[in-house]
C-alpha cells in the first residue's frame, strides 16, 4: 500500500480530510448507471428530465454518495473501516456536458470535504465521527452527511 496509514492518535477534533475533487459529467452519469444499475433517464436524458421539475438532468445522488465514500476510505487507509455512513441529497447538481469523446465542457468542479467532529473509544473500537459534504462550484453544500469510522490505534499495535 502506497498510502500512509492514519491512526486514531493522529486525529484531532477539527482535523480536515484531504479534499477530493470531482467533475460530474454526462459520461460519468452513464458509467455510473451501468455500474450501479440505476438507469433512471433523469440522469442522462434531457427530454425526460424536462418533465421531472429538476431544471435539467441531475447527477445521481448515489454517485455523490460514492464520492463521499471515496473521500472517507482514502482518508482512513487500508486498516480503517467505515462503521456508519449517512448523507442527504439536498441540492441538485447538474453534470457538465461532453465537449469531445473524453473531455467535458468548461464548468463547475465539485469538492468533497470532511472534518473530524468527535473521537471516542467504545467497546474496544477507536471511533472517529466526521462531518462530510459535497460542495458545488459556488461553494454550496449540496450533499451533507456524516460518517463514523474505526481507525487502528498505535497503542493496540504495540
Amino acid at each position, binding site marked *: 500500500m502506497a498510502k500512509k496509514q492514519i491512526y486514531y492518535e493522529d486525529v484531532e477534533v477539527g482535523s480536515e480530510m484531504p479534499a477530493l475533487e470531482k467533475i460530474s459529467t454526462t459520461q460519468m452519469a452513464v458509467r455510473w448507471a451501468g455500474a450501479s*444499475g440505476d438507469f433512471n433517464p433523469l440522469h442522462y436524458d434531457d427530454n425526460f428530465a424536462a418533465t421531472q421539475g429538476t431544471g435539467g438532468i441531475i447527477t445521481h445522488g448515489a454517485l455523490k454518495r*460514492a464520492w463521499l*465514500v471515496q473521500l472517507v476510505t482514502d482518508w482512513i487507509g*487500508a486498516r480503517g473501516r467505515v462503521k456508519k*455512513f449517512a448523507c*442527504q*441529497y439536498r441540492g441538485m447538481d447538474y453534470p457538465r456536458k461532453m465537449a469531445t469523446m473524453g473531455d467535458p465542457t468548461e464548468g463547475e468542479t465539485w469538492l468533497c470535504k470532511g472534518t473530524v467532529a468527535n473521537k471516542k473509544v467504545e467497546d474496544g473500537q477507536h471511533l472517529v465521527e466526521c462531518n462530510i459534504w459535497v460542495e458545488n462550484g459556488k461553494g454550496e453544500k449540496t450533499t451533507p452527511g456524516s460518517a463514523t469510522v474505526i481507525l487502528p490505534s498505535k497503542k493496540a499495535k504495540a
Partner: protein
Amino acid sequence: MADESILTDEIKAMIGTLSEPVIMEVGRVAIRRYADAVGDDNPLFHEVEDAKAAGYEDLICPPGFWGWPIKGRATIGGMSIVGGVLIKAGLWRILDGGVDQEFYIPIRAGDILTAYSKIADIREREGKAGKMVFTTVETTYLNQNGDTVAVNRATIIAR
C-alpha cells in the same frame, strides 16, 4: 384542497411491507467496474494482493456497493414495491433523498448476499414545491454464513 393529505390509503397500507429477498452475487469484475465508475482507484477495490495484504480474503466492496443481483436489476426490492403505488397516486416525480447505513462486516468478492427490504416508514412533508411523500426503505444484507453484513436505509422522495 391545499390541506388534503396526498397519502392515499393504498400508500399508507404499504408501511411495513416486505419485499421478496434478492440474491446478490459479489464479483471482482463488478467491484472494479463500480470503483472505476466512481473514479476510485483504491487498491482494496482493484488489486487482490493489496486486499490480502490488508487482511482481507479478496477484493472488498466500497461501502455501499452490494454486488449484483443474480436476476433482474440492481434496484433494491423496496423501490419496486413502493414505486408503482406512488406513481398510481400521481406522484411520479421520484428522487433519491439520501441514505443512512451501518456496516458490520466488510463485503468481499465471493460473497453471496441476501437482501431483505422493508417499507419502514412513509410520511408526508410540505416542501418548497408543495406536498411530498418521503418513503424510507430499510434493506438488511445477510451473507452466505447468515451474518448481517450491513443495513441500508434509503429515503425516496415522491411528488
